[in-house]
């Protein structure tokens, strides 16, 4: 780090050693030569005085002495000038350039006038060049290391994105520091998921608290090294709205020194559907066993009564009626059980939707057998649901066997959807194959690469069967019905909410703020928001028609976690205001009312400081309706106008446009005067202001609020003039 190196260099510089060292080199050299000149003049004068005292002619003395003195002083001056120009100044220049190279990263040395310094200039030049090269190679190495680290990080991000389980990482006080797209998908029905937000607004708390208590206890006792599950535990919980059941594992994460827990990882699945199927299956089994006891009991009793030869005709008829009724009812029950089990039996083996062309092409290419044949895919391709690996194997085996048995060389493959199923047809010119022959083929195991399963087992797995019948003149066909696709594959999948920032590990080491007022601004969470309204007078019936906000966590604008909602104000929007924000009555007609939006917005701002441009205006709109909606906006509030005023005085215009321009923040014209566009711009402005405030000595929230109040007071006084 440059700061540390500069500090080290400052320490290494020699301490001042008195007056002599504080004067520059040139001055010292000059004084030195001046001293010589003065000494020479003094010596000359002294000699002349002595000679004069010994009787030499005063005029001669003055003449010759003066002349010699001037000549000598002149020589000294000339030598000094040469010395100064060719030695001292080049030395100073080299020193300056060397210092520039050391401290300011300069890379060259001006040694033009240094030819009299001998090896000093080339040596200095070599040093500077070596320094520049060392710096360049350090930069390159750092660049490579950074690029490598970024590449690894992207790979890990990809793994997290593509993994099929939801993954969350949380701090010990249950704030989310990482979530992957699957977690977002599973949990977002339950609430807003975001960095730094509490986990327990999304899922029930007690299962996690209990699991973590157990794990922390296990760690504290050191049992985790011998425990089968190590530092992880199973957890089953529900989403906060009670709608879905989740099952997963919680694993305690240790800090770098592995000395204490730092947070925990949750990997989970949505098991609502699976559990529901399990419950139905259990019920079905119970009905099929226990539920049949009663009818069978009725039957048995009646039959045993009929065995008695003593009963009379009337009684006989009655028992025979019981027999008829109970058997009919048993039959009906069986039909019902079969019907109910139809959907349940489908789920046992994992299957997926596959495109028929893909399936057929794979089967054609498989070519495990010796037979030589060609196959053509005919007809419209469709999606179907099966275990493609085994179906491909089966098709390949069938084509080989049929090619040998029916002595045919060409097949056509078709997939036809009909009545909730998809029929795969394998057709050829030739005789129909007998069922016994087909059954024989099904008894053999398929290729070992699919685990030695037989064709019959593959059919069982798919709850299906196949047959061979005649299909036109001299042609035969093998027909295999399979299931219809589970998902509707209509063109492009719906766009996934791309959240570029989905983790922030700095949040792990965030210390409990304690008093929020004294927390540095950089460490706080903010929600920067903006509203659009029907007009400028909240007390005269103007209402909000749009509210948008964006979270800033750890100094980053989380563009993926925004709040943007139109509100139906329940009154007409004046044309004048529509001209500004382009929201008209038609756009808000389907929007929810403020009683639904305000609580959601309050939840979005939980734990954050509110920031807005001209905050008083927006806050007035929020607080006017808050009681009616059952919420309270008690967050601290900061106003970017007042903060900017504190920094730059009151002269310049402090509109959002001006501030954005000053900080070179771009707002697209179509986003200006939209709640979201303005929020994002204000957020960027706010981050720059935080930097400048820090430089101006305003670091904590308390200081920022104080500074705002002073700036506000000044502005009010100015407005009064």
């Amino acid at each position, binding site marked *: 780090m440059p700061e540390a190196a500069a500090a080290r260099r400052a320490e290494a510089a020699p301490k001042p050693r008195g007056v002599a060292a504080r004067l520059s080199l040139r001055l010292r050299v000059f004084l030195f030569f001046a001293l010589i000149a003065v000494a020479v003049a003094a010596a000359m004068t002294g000699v002349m005085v002595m000679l004069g005292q010994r009787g030499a002619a005063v005029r001669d003395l003055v003449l010759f002495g003066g002349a010699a003195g001037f000549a000598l002083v002149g020589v000294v001056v000339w030598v000094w000038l040469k010395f100064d120009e060719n030695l001292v100044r080049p030395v100073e220049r080299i020193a300056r350039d060397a210092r520039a190279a050391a401290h300011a990263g300069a890379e060259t040395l001006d040694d033009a006038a240094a030819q009299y310094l001998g090896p000093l200039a080339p040596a200095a030049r070599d040093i500077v060049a070596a320094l520049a090269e060392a710096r360049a190679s350090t930069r390159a190495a750092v660049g490579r290391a950074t690029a490598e680290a970024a590449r690894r990080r992207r790979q890990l991000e990809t793994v997290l994105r593509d993994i099929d389980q939801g993954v969350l990482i949380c701090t010990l006080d249950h704030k989310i520091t990482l979530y992957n797209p699957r977690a977002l998908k599973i949990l977002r029905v339950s609430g807003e998921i975001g960095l730094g937000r509490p986990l327990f607004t999304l899922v029930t708390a007690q299962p996690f608290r209990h699991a973590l208590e157990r794990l922390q206890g296990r760690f504290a006792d050191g049992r985790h090294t011998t425990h089968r599950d190590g530092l992880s535990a199973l957890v089953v919980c529900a989403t906060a709205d009670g709608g879905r059941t989740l099952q997963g594992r919680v694993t305690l994460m240790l800090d770098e020194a592995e000395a204490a827990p730092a947070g925990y990882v949750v990997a989970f699945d949505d098991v609502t559907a699976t559990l529901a199927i399990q419950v139905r299956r259990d019920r079905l089994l119970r009905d099929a066993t226990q539920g049949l006891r009663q009818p069978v009991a009725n039957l048995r009793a009646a039959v045993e009564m009929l065995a008695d030869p003593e009963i009379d005709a009337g009684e006989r008829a009655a028992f025979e009626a019981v027999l008829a009724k109970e*058997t*009919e009812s*048993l*039959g009906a029950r*069986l039909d019902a059980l*079969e019907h109910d089990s139809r959907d349940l039996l489908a789920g046992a083996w994992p299957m997926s939707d596959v495109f028929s062309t893909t399936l057929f092409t794979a089967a054609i290419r498989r070519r495990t057998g010796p037979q030589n044949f060609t196959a053509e895919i005919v007809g419209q391709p469709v999606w179907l649901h099966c275990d493609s690996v085994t179906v491909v194997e089966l098709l390949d085996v069938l084509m080989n066997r049929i090619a040998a048995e029916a002595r045919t060389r060409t097949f056509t493959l078709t997939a036809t959807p009909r009545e909730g199923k998809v029929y795969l047809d394998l057709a050829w010119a030739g005789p*129909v194959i*007998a*069922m*016994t022959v087909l*059954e024989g083929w099904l008894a053999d195991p398929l290729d070992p690469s699919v685990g030695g399963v037989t064709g019959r087992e593959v059919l069982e797995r798919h*709850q*299906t*069967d*196949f*047959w*061979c*019948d005649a299909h036109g003149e001299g042609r035969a066909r093998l*027909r295999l*019905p399979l299931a219809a696709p589970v998902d509707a594959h209509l063109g492009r999948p719906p766009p996934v909410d791309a959240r570029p920032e989905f983790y922030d590990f700095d949040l792990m080491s965030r210390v409990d703020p304690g008093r929020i007022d004294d927390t540095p601004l950089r460490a706080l969470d903010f929600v920067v928001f903006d509203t659009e309204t029907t007009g400028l007078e909240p007390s005269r019936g103007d209402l909000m028609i749009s509210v948008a906000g964006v979270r800033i966590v750890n100094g980053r604008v989380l563009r993926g976690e925004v709040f943007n909602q139109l509100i139906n104000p329940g009154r007409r929007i004046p044309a004048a205001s529509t001209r500004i924000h382009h929201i008209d009555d038609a756009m808000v007609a389907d929007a929810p009312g403020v009683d639904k939006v305000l609580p959601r917005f309050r939840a979005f701002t939980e734990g954050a400081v509110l920031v807005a441009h001209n905050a008083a205006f927006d806050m007035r709109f929020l607080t006017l309706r808050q009681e009616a909606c059952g919420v309270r906006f008690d967050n601290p509030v900061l106003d970017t106008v007042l903060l900017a005023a504190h920094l730059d005085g009151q002269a310049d215009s402090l509109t959002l446009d001006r501030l954005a321009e000053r900080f070179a923040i771009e707002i697209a014209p179509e986003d200006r005067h939209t709640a979201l566009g303005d929020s994002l711009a204000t957020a960027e402005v706010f981050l720059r202001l935080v930097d400048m405030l820090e430089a101006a000595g305003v670091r904590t929230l308390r200081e920022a609020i104080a500074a705002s109040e002073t700036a506000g007071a000044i502005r009010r006084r100015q407005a009064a003039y």
Partner: protein
Amino acid sequence: MTRHVLVVDDEDSITLSLRHLMKREGYQVSVARDGEEALAAVAADPPDLMLLDVMIPRRDGYDVCQTIRANPAWADVKIVMVSARGRDIEVEKGLALGADAYVTKPFSTRELAQMVRDLIGAPDA
């Protein structure tokens, strides 16, 4: 000539009832207990209608049905599959292989008798 019905099933309980039912209706009845026996019976004396169970030993009901349909000489033999296997796929397969009807056990004997009458008419026509 009396209409002839062949009952093919390996379960004594059901053949007892079916034979009794068909005889009561007035048809001439014979019984086969497995696939080979059934085909031999058809070859010897083709019936007007077969009540054919699927799960029989030595060539199952599907096989028997397909074999009979493959022989144009027996095109007039009506085949009614009667089986405990009632899944959609099994019914579809039976009908695809040439059965004229498919009845899932348990069934109502009265409805079965009606179906036989609809397919081949009264016993002596």
